[in-house]
């Protein structure tokens, strides 16, 4: 079990290319995140979950689906840790499993309105499902 936990933490580091040990906990990522209030695990906490090999909590977190990929944390991280990449890797670990997606094509018709741009659909599909 613990070796599986270790593997998951290694996988998230591999997909994201992030070294969580570089973080100095300045909190700038959380301070700048427009989704901070909506997140259960906050951006500055992502690294701790990977270091503590608790990827399970991270992949079950609401935060996965609240990140906007606005790259504010990526731009402003003074240590080049880029927490946005960690949360995207966690999201990838979820959506790469069959039937494990946040958006189903069946939901689409009722989400549409006449002004809705195609760009919104392709972006959401790319972030929310495989």
């Amino acid at each position, binding site marked *: 079990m613990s070796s599986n936990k270790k593997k998951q933490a290694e996988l998230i580091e591999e997909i994201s290319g992030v070294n969580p040990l570089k973080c100095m906990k300045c909190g700038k990522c959380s301070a700048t995140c427009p989704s901070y209030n909506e997140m259960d695990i906050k951006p500055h906490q992502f690294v701790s979950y990977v270091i503590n090999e608790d990827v399970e909590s991270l992949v079950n977190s609401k935060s996965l689906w609240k990140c906007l990929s606005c790259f504010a944390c990526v731009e402003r991280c003074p240590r080049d840790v880029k927490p946005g990449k960690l949360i*995207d890797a966690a999201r990838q670990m979820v959506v790469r499993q069959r039937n494990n997606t946040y958006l189903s094509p069946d939901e689409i018709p009722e989400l549409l309105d006449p002004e809705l741009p195609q760009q919104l659909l392709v972006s959401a599909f790319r972030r929310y499902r495989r």
Partner: protein
Amino acid sequence: MKYSYYPGCTLRTKAKDLDDYARASARVLGFELEEVEDWQCCGGVYPLGTDEIATKLSSVRALNAAKEKNQELVTICSACHHVIKRVNDDMKNVEDICTRANNYMELDTPYKGETKVLHYLEVLRDRVGFDELKKKVVNPLKGKKIGAYYGCLLLRPGKLLEFDNPENPKIMEDFIRAIGAEPVIYPYRNECCGGYISLKEKDMAKSMCDKITESAEGFGADMLITACPLCMYNLNKSSAKKIPVYYFTELLAEALGVKEVQAS
């Protein structure tokens, strides 16, 4: 001057205006946008995973098509610009991605990031020049106070996109001056509109856009301009918004006197 041009999915459909006004203005400004043949959707968001290859191939194909014509590649949509520029950076600087993408592509000569990607605003600034643009303006938008809405994807990450200073940009303000109007600097101009969150969590995007529009209005803007169809959509859903949002190319076409020509 001829550029390869990548319109992207939305400029062919919901944001046709953004495209039409850009092409009409280009003709007046002396450059031509030659659409990449058989371009495919960029996917809207850059695939961040270091092992993501297939999702980057549509960008690589467009980049390579421009390379084969020995042309720079122009985009207008903020998302296409973001995705294609970042994939190009991967092809140039990340050996693993470059090798694996080329394994899929089977080109005669591997693509290694040779193409220069330019946003239309960069063409105006770096190729045409804002001073030259100013000379071609026949209908200056005098007295209009315009807030530039940059959002995220044009600017960040600044080191990769090299579009402008990501914290204190000025390219759109310089554009606004060149077409004879007055730029309004407001704090929320590079804050996120919510992006794709507006599909499933409409209230969240709405409250973010309320802050943006209230900020712009509070600093005296009569209108906002954007380069992104998704920003446009989200801003228009703001319930607090009292001012209109335009694509920057519409105001450009108006200033150059080709707006009506285009509409007819």
